[in-house]
């Protein structure tokens, strides 16, 4: 872990951010915009998959997917830069570590969705015959991402190491 922290701290990105530390305030604001886009759009899509909002077609609701990706992109970019700025604070923080595990699990869940559910959406939408595992994947997605949000907010409030 010390080697990884030292690598981040010796990077030009780290030096630049420390010299311009107002950038972290801007990045935090961006991280919150990304959060709203990612979780806002994901909530609607996943709730539709679970069975809410039946008046909206599943296909139409998926036009919100780019909002999820833009939100994720903003938060990946700002999140990586937070680690560059203060690696010793984040990498050894238990709440940050759990957050990264949850992001990883959410990514696996999304991959599973992409392979097993997405190709069948047109067929299942016609008579709204989504199998139970599709609803489980949608519910897992929401739980994982709200867990990510909770762990992120807890980073300043838990012990490190």
């Amino acid at each position, binding site marked *: 872990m010390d080697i990884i922290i030292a690598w981040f701290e010796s990077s030009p990105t780290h030096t630049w951010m420390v010299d311009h530390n107002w950038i972290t*305030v801007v990045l*935090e*604001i961006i991280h*919150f*915009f990304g*959060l*709203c*886009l*990612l*979780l*806002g*759009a994901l*909530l*609607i899509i996943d*709730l539709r998959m679970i069975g809410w*909002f039946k*008046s*909206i077609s599943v*296909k*139409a*609701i998926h*036009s*919100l997917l780019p*909002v999820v990706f833009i939100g994720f992109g903003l938060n990946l970019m700002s999140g990586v830069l937070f680690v560059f700025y203060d690696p010793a604070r984040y990498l050894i923080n238990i709440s940050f570590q759990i957050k990264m595990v949850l992001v990883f699990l959410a990514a696996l869940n999304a991959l599973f969705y992409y392979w097993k559910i997405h190709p069948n959406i047109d067929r299942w939408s016609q008579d709204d015959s989504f199998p139970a595992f599709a609803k489980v994947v949608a519910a897992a997605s929401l739980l994982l991402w*709200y867990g990510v*949000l*909770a762990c*992120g*907010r*807890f980073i*300043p*409030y838990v012990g490190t190491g």
Partner: protein
Amino acid sequence: MNIFESLETTFIANWLIDSLYGYPVMLVLHGIGMSIVIGILFMFNLRLMGLFNNIELGAFKSLLKLAWAGFLINFISGCILFVQKATSFVQNWAFLVKIAGVVIATVMAIIAHKTLYQQADKWNSENAIALSAKILAFVSIGLWSVVIITGRLVGYLEQ
């Protein structure tokens, strides 16, 4: 003792100060509520401005109800977060701008929600949304953005 000082002595304020995780739990709830209310209102306003055209406008009638649930979460968690530092917050310009933004943007969202009930079918069938609605949608996105930005700044300006 003024009203803000007395708020800081209420049992809610005491509970928040004494409990180990009360404060971050309220912050988590405030974050979840934010993603619901601002996330949905962003998408609704973008829809009014012309994006996501294959989602029927009428669909937002039920989505906006969910947004109001998010608003309620944030109203309650926001009040609880407020009481324990009331005197500090009312002197914090970022907090005051944020609350002004919330009030104006909420009134606009209520009007938009009502208008949606009257106009959704007409706008949808003609595939034409009034220019005034598009402008208000743009302003609404701007106001909620101000709320996010000043909300983040509140913590930096705490005394």
